[in-house]
């Protein structure tokens, strides 16, 4: 086992930035009171101020008003809240039809499926080979019973960034609410709700060197949304539960720490990794759009080899990456995203995702590509595929 471990799975989770931890610490140790007791004592007032400040700062980062930003426990809860909240609010008034893309992340997909079991109709939109939704197809899918369109800002696996301005415009034209899961773009790809016609936006801190267990949902003023987490009156009476003040403060700090320079550097590392792999390793294919892509996402399929074997070899050499292979997942299912863009089993099983973060360097990228080239070469040597190709008679 190598001494230094290089983490390249930053879309799954990220290392917390020390400055975030520093900003959070006082809210664990000193100002730990409940924010709602602002009329009671000093600590409560300080807690309330910290929460409000974090909310203002996060709302500002999205171009929103602070009353339009609700804290949640993370992106899973935010997306559940958006889909189920709108469904509950509009099913009687307008209809029971929801549209999502086929390649959404599980919080959106599973929420849609859960609603389907309760009698809602769900359209799962096809995407093209790069993972993009066709606006014409979307337009045709919308009916007078459609209450919500939920299409992600960028894909969790292949990094393709959707044209949410175009999607939002279609939804506006048809008078349908639009939710976008921006878990992987918040901080990394510009997203301003003043300019973009979106009604609900899911964001989270764990992908940007913030703490996990905190996320948010942007809710445009006037958007009908039923409360489904019952209890107290927190978060404008939309989401009950004791406020996670250290989390909120950490989330705001994490966003504040992202710079244009950093995103540029991520993009440079991403481009370097993609072009080196495609050039130096034969029989590989890039998954996702080449340019409409998250600045920190690399996803490549290697023919004739299986992803779990690749990740395990890389792990032995000290690199942490992820794969869309069935063997890697607890469900023994290949990546629904790779199948969604028309990939076959072999492409799903042989896909490797490298996601970069603040603590990665160009040296890390070169090191992982060098090792990857060796690992793929060795695994192909022992693979019955490739040399014989498919279907050789035995």
């Amino acid at each position: 086992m190598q001494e230094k471990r290089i983490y390249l799975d930053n879309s799954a989770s990220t290392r917390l930035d020390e400055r975030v931890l520093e900003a959070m610490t006082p809210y664990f140790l000193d100002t730990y009171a409940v924010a709602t007791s602002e009329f009671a004592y000093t600590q409560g007032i300080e807690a309330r101020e910290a929460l409000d400040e974090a909310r203002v700062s996060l709302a500002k980062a999205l171009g929103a008003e602070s009353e339009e930003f609700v804290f949640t426990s993370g992106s899973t809860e935010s997306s559940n809240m958006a889909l189920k909240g709108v469904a509950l609010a509009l099913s009687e008034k307008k209809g029971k039809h929801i549209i999502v893309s086929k390649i959404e992340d599980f919080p959106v997909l599973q929420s849609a499926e859960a609603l389907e079991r309760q009698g809602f109709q769900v359209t799962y939109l096809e995407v093209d080979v790069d993972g993009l939704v066709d606006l014409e197809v979307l337009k045709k899918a919308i009916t007078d019973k459609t209450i919500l369109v939920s299409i992600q800002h960028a894909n969790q696996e292949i990094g393709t960034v959707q044209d949410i301005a175009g999607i939002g415009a279609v939804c506006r034209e048809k008078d349908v609410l639009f939710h976008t899961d921006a878990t992987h773009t918040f901080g990394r790809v510009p997203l301003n709700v003043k300019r973009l016609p979106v009604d609900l936006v899911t964001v989270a801190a764990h992908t940007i060197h913030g703490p996990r267990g905190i996320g948010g949902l942007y809710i445009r003023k006037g958007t009908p949304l039923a409360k489904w987490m019952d209890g107290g009156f927190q978060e404008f009476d939309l989401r009950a539960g004791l406020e996670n003040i250290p989390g909120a403060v950490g989330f705001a700090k994490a966003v504040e720490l992202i710079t244009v320079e950093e995103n540029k550097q991520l993009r440079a590392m991403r481009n370097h990794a993609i072009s080196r792999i495609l050039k130096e390793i034969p029989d590989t294919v890039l998954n996702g759009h080449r340019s409409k892509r998250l600045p920190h996402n690399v996803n490549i399929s290697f023919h004739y080899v299986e992803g779990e074997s690749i990740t395990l070899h890389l792990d032995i050499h000290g690199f942490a990456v992820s794969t869309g292979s069935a063997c890697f997942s607890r469900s023994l299912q290949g990546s629904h995203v790779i199948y969604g863009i028309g990939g076959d089993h072999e492409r799903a099983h042989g896909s490797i995702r490298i996601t970069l973060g603040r603590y990665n360097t160009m040296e890390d990228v070169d090191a992982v590509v060098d090792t990857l080239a060796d690992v793929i070469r060795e695994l192909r040597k022992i693979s019955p595929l490739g040399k014989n190709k498919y279907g050789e008679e035995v």
Partner: protein
Amino acid sequence: MKFPYSETVLEHFKNPHNVGKIDNPDGKSMEGSPACGDMVAVYIKVEPKTKTIEDIKFESYGCASNIATGSIITELAKGKTLDEAKKITWKQASDALGGLPKIKAHCSVLAIEGLRAAITNYEEKHGLVKKRVPTTVETIRKRLRKVMNPLAGLDLVRTNLVKDIQKNNGTVRVAIDLPRNHQFAPAIKEEIDEKIEPLWDVKEVIVDFTD
């Protein structure tokens, strides 16, 4: 740190034994498919008088447990007679590897099947196999014992997921006690197709799930 794999599995995964191809093998097989995520090819050289496996090699497209099992069964089979080698079980391979995770059982069973299929291939080529017998419900049940129920890491029959098996001329109908929209339904159907379709007198396989 605790890996899901034993030290021995990792050793065989890192440095698999008997890897590659044998030119003009006396018997060979290719089991699995990219669809189920694993494939294994086995090649054998047989000493004709003693019917001993003189040389054996394997190739693998698969995860660590598939590669490691391929490596260990080739070690176990080398020097054995065909009859002895046929009797090598998944349990023996798993024990020799210091245990395998349950959920990975099907990846490693494949290597055993590969070895047995290579032996059958040799026997067929050398006129050692009896006449083709018609497929019965029992043959089908036996084959379904090799299809994993990923929920339990055990096969479909043992976990009582097979509700009914019918064979009508060339059509086989298997009823599985899982809802059609269950996350494992497509994978299970695919594996059933793969196990039953190759039977010489089966033309069509229909898998029924519950609503």
